[in-house]
């Protein structure tokens, strides 16, 4: 197992390098240039100002050299400094990344809490009313955009019942209960969005598994339903489901951006959007790098979980 983890971690290095390279180059290829934008705020900027600013920001050097320098600094934990705020990117991310990770984790957790029972129940009661309701729910969750649900939640409960979800961020230190209550609503919306796909896959996989000979054997041995479903059914159905959950981490990160805005959450998503608009190269590069590492790590975790769920899987 240890060898497998080391091998997978080493295999992640070229992936990360590729992500870094692609982000770095694409940022410089898309229309919209950091220096132009910074100078656009000065009504009397001159050509000399442009040259000076390029030098200050190190953008006058050849792009490959800039890339090598950035990678070298990143290896030392230095992701550069935002030219707009003059603050280290690592400092900016230190406060924001935990918020986004917490939000994403809660969203996925709520999504699983919703999706797995409904998926299993739908499979167990195939083509009954409860199955139809469950499947309809999944389609609804998949088809209604999260931002739309969020706006409904922000506007209508206040209008109808005089109640609004908490919309101002509360740090854990200022009140753990309020903190969790604040995260619950956006996490519920994120979870609903993620639940649809997981629910449908869980149902499909359970239907497949429940038709297997070993399940028939389990039933014929007189095992209790809970044991048959949970131990022999769900466990075998979970491998592809876990794969999808792993992939949904990146979906969840994407989904956090809009919800962070609507719920005033100080996460990476808002920071990232702002950085993109401002062509804040170091910040964009830093965020993409960190998120890529998170996604790679989660997928490594998923691969390890395969073996935990199905001991037949060996990491040799």
């Amino acid at each position, binding site marked *: 197992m240890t060898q497998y983890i080391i091998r997978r971690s080493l295999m992640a290095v070229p992936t990360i390098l590729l992500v870094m390279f692609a982000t770095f180059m694409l940022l410089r290829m*898309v*229309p*919209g*240039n950091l*220096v*132009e*934008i*910074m*100078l*656009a*705020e*000065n*009504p*009397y*900027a001159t050509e*000399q*100002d*442009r040259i*000076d*600013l390029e030098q*200050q*920001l190190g953008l006058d050097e050849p792009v490959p050299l800039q890339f090598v320098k950035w990678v070298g600094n990143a290896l030392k934990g230095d992701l550069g400094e935002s*030219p*707009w*705020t*003059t*603050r280290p990117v690592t400092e*900016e991310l230190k*406060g*924001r990344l935990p918020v986004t990770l917490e939000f994403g984790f809660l969203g996925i957790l709520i999504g699983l809490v919703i999706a797995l029972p409904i998926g299993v129940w739908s499979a167990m009661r195939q083509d009954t009313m409860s199955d139809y309701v469950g499947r309809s729910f999944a389609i609804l969750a998949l088809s209604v955009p999260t931002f739309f649900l969020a*706006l409904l939640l*922000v*506007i209508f409960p*206040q*209008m109808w019942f005089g109640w*609004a979800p908490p*919309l*101002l*961020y509360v*740090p854990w230190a200022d009140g753990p209960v309020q903190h969790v209550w604040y995260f619950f609503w956006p996490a519920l919306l994120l979870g609903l969005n993620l639940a649809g796909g997981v629910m449908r896959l869980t149902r499909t996989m359970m239907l497949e598994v429940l038709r297997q000979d070993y399940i028939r054997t389990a039933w014929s041995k007189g095992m209790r339903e809970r044991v048959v479903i949970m131990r022999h059914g769900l466990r075998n159905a979970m491998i592809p489901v876990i794969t999808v959950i792993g992939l949904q981490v990146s979906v969840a990160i994407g989904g956090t951006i809009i919800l962070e*805005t*609507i*719920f*005033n*959450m*100080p*996460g990476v998503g*808002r*920071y990232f959007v*702002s950085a*993109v*608009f*401002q*062509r804040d190269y170091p910040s964009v590069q830093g965020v993409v790098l960190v998120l890529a590492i998170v996604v790679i790590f989660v997928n490594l975790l998923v691969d390890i979980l395969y073996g935990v769920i199905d001991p037949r899987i060996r990491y040799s």
Partner: protein
Amino acid sequence: MTRTETNYWQRLNERKTSRRTVLRGAGVAGAGGAGWALVGCGGDDDDGGNGGGSATNTPANGGSGPTATPEPQATPTPAGDTIKRGGHFNMAMGGSPRSLDVHFDTFPYNTAVVTNTNNGILQFSPDLTEIQTDLATGMPEQPDDLTFTFKINQGVMWQDIAPVNGRELTAEDVKWSIERQMTDEAGKFQHAYFFLGAVDSIDAPDNETVVFNMSKPFAPFLSYVASPWSMIVNREAVEEYGDLTEHAVGTGPFIFKEWQKDVKFELEANPNYWKKDQFGGALPYIDSFTINIVTDPDTYGTLFIDKQLDAALLGESQLSRVQEARSDAFYRSQPSQFWRQFRMQPTTPDAPYVAPFDDIRVRQAVVQGIDPQEYLDLVYNGDGIVTHGPILPVYENWALKETPEGARYDPAAAIALLEAAGNPTVSGPMIWAATTPTLEQVAQIHQAQLAAIGVTLELQPMELAAYYNQTYAYEYTFSSHTPLNNPDPDENLSSYFGRNSTFFKHHNEDIWAKIDAQATELDFERRQQLVEEVQIDIVNDFPMKFLYTTNNHGFTDPKVQNWFYSADLYNGRIHNIWLDA
């Protein structure tokens, strides 16, 4: 003879005292809606005043402290005993500053914070139409056109926090701060242009005197001194922290306590604040306040309806539901300072107009083919005002009172002009920063209106940064742009139509000369005349159509007293408010 008693700004203010009645009632806007609203170069205020703040519904009076000109207040102050002390005020703004360093940032979200922690030598009134004293005891002495001598109030104390620890402010501090602002370093000291090239040197001959020695007569000087971007910052803090990106240390009424990035600012009353109210009582009245960062307009509206905010400045999209749900709140509509331009090809000496725009009749036809009121009616439910030239009507001393005849909407005349020009093919792409759906609606109206006179626009929405790149390369045929107007006419004329302009390029040496002339004209009436003339010349040269500005809508909980929120958060002072409950 010194010109102290009859100086330019005193005469200007005297004139305005009798002319401001309309605007005093109406107030002016805090626009600032877009988190990405670059000062002077086109953000977007379409989602409204999401910029924060509010205004109450009673015309101004009153004043405070040692200022020479009374500060406009939102509600009357009948007697000192009606003022209640204490409490926490909760407001919001639509985005975050990039930095708390006023010398670095250009987002008004910065000044919403720093105008409460720091003071300037002078200040604008909240409605941005008057210049008042702040740290200065009065308006400056002007022994000649090249010298401004300010006397600084004595007993002004820096806040009692590290690293300055409550020492007294000196003239040397003021000199140092303005000299820092003048640092010629591109990309950082964004407001150096206020003084660079105009201020030759600054002297502090004693602890209470600051002398600006000008290299040329410079009419915008006092405007720039009064700008929130010229707040006096603390030297020890800069030396301690390197810059003031995350620190605000000043002489102002509130002490900066905390900035939770993308969440909120927390400020507490400065117990040693040097200014007193008109009854000699201590300021500020409230104990503390929070500025929440609320970027989504729907969320902002809900927070005010839910009484989680004491004040809100909202766009048209939130107006009806907030009015309906909070009928108890004070409400006032205020014009935004973001305005809309429909631009044609920029020109420089090396890149003159290309056909068919080299024929002034074609440009005039385009201008006459556009009806500004229709945008307001169709996109904003009539919620805004038509503008007539490069200066917004809110600056009533400088703005044109009506659109020059040849630039008014007249499609029949536009068609006739095109016929006279030989019916050339007038077409091309129109670019804009596609940041909100309303901007697309605006673009579609441009297209439809001009199609009616035979001009074809190919709509080309662009991502914001890409738009800026193209805009500042000055390579486009048509553009729909949303810049921010500023209090001094020179900033609106020089930076768009002057010889060294960068926000737009328009090559017309007569216009350049007139813009130069108004910038050095220290006589108010003469300058006003020059500004009017050059605006008419600009409009009649048809480089663009000046369109409209939308309104923002200020709501305040009834408990909030004596607050007039300034346009664009430009002057975010809440020095004198109190809470009734």
